[in-house]
């Protein structure tokens, strides 16, 4: 059974005629690292807010763990795009708050130990008494990740988790994310506008077409063995195939039912169109 199912989900915003998302269907099996890839403004954040239960769909059904989704909860922990750490709490307190919320009545000592485990997992022991403002972007992202993991969620939702980081930190955090996922072994749904990031990390990539009326294209499995080594990955035929298919799927929304041949030459123009995609794998 799938952990998460979306059926014909549609979402509009007041004051706009066309829905942002329309006819969204998504099946996420337990344990998968799923990546939803789309351009800026396609409605990625809206989609992940729907999955988290922070907003409700206008139409369609969202089923989580066999039951209809109603309202957010720690079983669907989310890492927000801008981290959203509570600035008046230290790193430890931010994480401990999540532990308390996920397992209330744990007692002070056990809560502290739980929090410590997640602080160690993201390698932040040296900064555990600092406040978010004193941390770099990459460190804040680690805290946000640790806080989400500390809820011991069934699914970890990542809303463009690395988009605010500089290229070098971003690369390092991608490797870190792969390592942490390898240890935590939870289901992950990541939303990103970086194709290469999606292929590097995910088991399966779901392309989100351009809005309005954005919808999900055919799921594209990434048949690359783990651990994935960044160097030389772009030369791997499986990598190139996945990249080509995702690009085609994203591009395919402009014209109706494009053939492979018709789309192929336009690939380049699409790539330059979307900022993060211009980072070719060779340049990393």
């Amino acid at each position: 059974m799938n952990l998460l199912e979306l059926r014909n989900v549609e979402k509009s915003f007041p004051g706009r005629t066309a829905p942002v998302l329309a006819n969204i269907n998504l099946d996420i099996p337990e344990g998968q690292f799923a990546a939803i890839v789309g351009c800026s403004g396609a409605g990625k954040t809206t989609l992940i807010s729907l999955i988290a239960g922070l907003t409700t769909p206008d139409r369609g059904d969202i089923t989580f763990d066999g039951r209809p989704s109603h309202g957010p909860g720690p079983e669907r922990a989310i890492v927000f795009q801008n981290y959203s750490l509570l600035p008046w709490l230290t790193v430890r307190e931010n994480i401990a708050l999540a532990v308390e919320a996920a397992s209330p009545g744990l007692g002070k000592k056990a809560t502290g130990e739980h929090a410590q485990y997640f602080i160690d997992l993201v390698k932040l022991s040296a900064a555990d008494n600092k406040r978010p403002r004193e941390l770099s972007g990459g460190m804040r992202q680690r805290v946000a990740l640790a806080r989400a993991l500390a809820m011991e969620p069934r699914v970890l939702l990542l809303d463009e988790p690395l988009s605010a980081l500089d290229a070098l930190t971003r690369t390092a955090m991608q490797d870190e994310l792969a390592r942490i996922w390898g240890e935590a072994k939870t289901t992950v749904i990541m939303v990103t506008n970086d194709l290469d990031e999606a292929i590097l990390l995910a088991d399966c990539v779901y392309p989100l077409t351009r809005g309005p009326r954005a919808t999900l294209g055919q799921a594209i499995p990434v048949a690359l063995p783990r651990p994935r080594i960044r160097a030389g990955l772009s030369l791997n035929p499986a990598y190139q195939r996945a990249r080509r298919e995702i690009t085609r799927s994203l591009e395919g929304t402009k014209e109706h039912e494009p053939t492979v041949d018709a789309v192929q030459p336009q690939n380049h123009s699409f790539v330059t169109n979307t900022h993060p995609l211009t980072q070719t794998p060779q340049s990393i």
Partner: protein
Amino acid sequence: MKIHQLKNALLPFVGVACVVALWSLLSVTVAPDLPSPLQSWNESKRYILEPFFKEGEMNQGIGRLAYFSLIRVAQGYLLAILIGTPLGFLLGLSRNFTKTFDPLIQILRPISPLAWLPLGLILFQRSEPAALFTIAICAMWPTVINTAVGVRNINQDYLNVGRVLRLSRWQMLTKIIVPATLPYLFTGYRLSLGIAWLVIVAAEMLTGAVGVGGFLWQEYNSLVYSHIILAIVTIGVIGYILDRLMALAELRFQRA
């Protein structure tokens, strides 16, 4: 660098000197009743140099007078923030509460302390509680309004964090809403204290209570004009010190 520091240290005194010169000029030309700076100093220096002497109810060192005023302000101010803070949170949190009471607050807010005091006297029959009532009702508005604005401006992301953590209403208030509002709250507290200090003088003048304001009014009636200047300077200096102290507290909470 040296010259820059010297300037910083000296220029404020130049400003004071200008005002004293203007004051001297006025006292010898258009306002013969106004005591000159020197005369004011000579007649007032005992109150400053022996700030805690006492020769009668209204004839006391400026330290004692200021003490009575400060105690009164502290009580009225405490009342103001004890009422104003929860009121502000209610206004920020509940749309219906805002619709019910916001028009009333906007009308009550600009009313002068001089107008509230007689009402206080009717309500409480005695001058002391009437003064506290006046301070509280005039000083609480900045706290009420800043708190309400602070609550309304809480980052939606923080509230979403609370929703994902499934915090109870009480936890949401104590763990998210109150800490997120603290910087606004303290700005409100600082502005409220400034108003409380403004109101105290008016309240004491009208009720004849012992304090800096009462002293000022009594000395005016006794034609000791130099003491009016003494009282004015005291009110200004204490008001400034209070504001600085609150600004320090505010800064601490904004950092936290």
